[in-house]
């Protein structure tokens, strides 16, 4: 049984080795080819940018985000979780009966209190 246990880790070790060697060898081969002038080296601004396509980059890498964004993120997560919780409840609504209905009401009541609290403390205003 212990052997089995280590065999599992052996598989992971082989996988890790391949995952490191394959991309690593590509880099090494590319570096070696540059000596043979098969791989030309002509850097320019577009090539050196982190993403070659998509949005154009603006500003520095370490901009300061507005701290208020954090409040909205938290409130969003709260309601996100609520949706996830309500969905299976709604699917099973008939089987669960009245008790689950009352429990969901309590849950939503607690969320509403939290939401009223955030509103009351002006967390929803962008200042």
């Amino acid at each position, binding site marked *: 049984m212990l052997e089995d246990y280590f065999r599992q880790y052996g598989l992971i070790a082989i996988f890790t080795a391949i995952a490191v060697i394959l991309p690593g060898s590509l880099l090494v081969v590319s570096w070696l080819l540059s000596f043979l002038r098969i791989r030309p080296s002509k850097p320019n601004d577009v090539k050196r940018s982190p993403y070659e396509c998509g949005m154009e980059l603006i500003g520095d890498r370490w901009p300061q985000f507005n701290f208020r964004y954090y409040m909205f993120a938290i409130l969003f997560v709260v309601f996100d979780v609520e949706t996830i919780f309500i969905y299976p409840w709604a699917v099973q609504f008939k089987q669960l009966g009245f*008790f689950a209905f009352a*429990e969901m009401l309590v849950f939503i009541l*607690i969320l509403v*209190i939290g939401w*009223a*609290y955030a509103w*009351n403390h002006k967390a929803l205003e962008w200042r």
Partner: protein
Amino acid sequence: MTLHDLYLLSPELSLASLGMVVIILDMVLRRKGVLAAVSVVGLLAPLAFSISLWGDLSGEPDGQMVGIFNTLVVDKFSLFFKFLVMGIVALVVMSSVEYVSRLRQFQGEYYGLMLFSASGMMLLAATTDLISTYVALELTTLPLVALAAFLRDSRSTEAGIKFLLLSAMSSAVLLYGMTLTYGFTGTTQLVEIFERLGASLDATVPFGSHALFLGVIMIVAGFGFKIAAVPFQMWVPDVYEGAPTPITAYLSVASKAAGFAIILRVFYIGFGEISLDWAALFAVLSAVSMTVGNLVAIAQKNIKRMLAYSTIAHAGFLMVGVASIAARVPVGETTLGPSGVLFYLVAYAVTNLAAFFAIIAISNRTGSDMISSFAGMGRRAPFLAIILAFAIVSLLGIPPTAGFMGKLYMFSAAMKSDLAWLVVVGVVNSAISAYYYLKVIRVMYMVDPEGEEKIHVAYAPQAALYITALGILALGIFPGPLMTVAEKAVAVLFR
């Protein structure tokens, strides 16, 4: 989940609802003074439910009611801690009235978070399953973290961050320990852990198995953080110093009581088979905690830091009772160890709260926590000084105080379980602690005051002071009734 389950949970649920009501009232009301009154009066609801549950217990053949998929139990042990936590909350709220009225915002949150944390502590004493233990532990800790950082100055913020990071760390260690235990036994239920351990232990290995050895030590580390035992005490002085003083008082008694509740339940019920092994572990931790706490306290100039180290030392004294499990193995079924822990927790609660309430009242006026700022308080505030001196005498363990009776029970339990060396360490430590405790009394009565202005105390904190001081005296003179209740409470641990 049935209505009966809800009834079993009713003290915790009503306490948490009370916390929400206080926060809602804070949004609606202009006069914030009402909030403290609502918090104290509202405690009558969980109190009534707890009394009703206590009454129902007499009808149960095995003295317990199990609910919510066997994760929660209502027995006299958990109810004992419910009453203790409610008492502590009521007293701390009363003593915070003046302190909180000077906060510019978040007064409702202050009381609300305290009540949320208390509901976690009540739950913690009632859990019989490792997973619900963990949930209750987090419910206890997270509001306390917010409260420690409540003042939002640099010290308080530092306290909050340290508390948050270190408690997250200790939770991780605790969870790892629980995982190993689960891996070894295949269950998270304490009673089932006990049953399955009996068959599968190897007597040649400490703790009966290598996995369990590691698991139990990690669980001890996780709980040791809660009760501020050395070597898991690093957070205590900084958090105690930075947190608002009433919260420091609350942390030092309530959080410790809840920690010991869960230690007693997990180890006496879950790991009863290997009691001799972990009893030795707790005995060593106890000796180290007492010694380190008392020696470092000598050097402190800030009274909150000094009491923080004294808390560590008292965690050591309390662990003497936990280590006295061996007493049940030989002749004469004695429950003195754990029932002594329960008695000591109540005695320590009234004593430490009295000391902290006097300190809050004095430093509200002087604006300083330094021991030197207590100079001449014997003249400036005779009433506060005498109560602080009395509390200190009780912390030291001199009769006729609660602290003396507590130490007496602890040490006699240790003697009965052949832990004479631990008693010697304890007595030597009591002598060491006299040095720094009596220093405060000396400063109050024999050093000239910095000013002549008298110090006045509002009604509610004054009432809290009277109650705690009376408690110290009453428990010191008539320990019998409380001890009888404590013995009934711990009976569920011995089955």
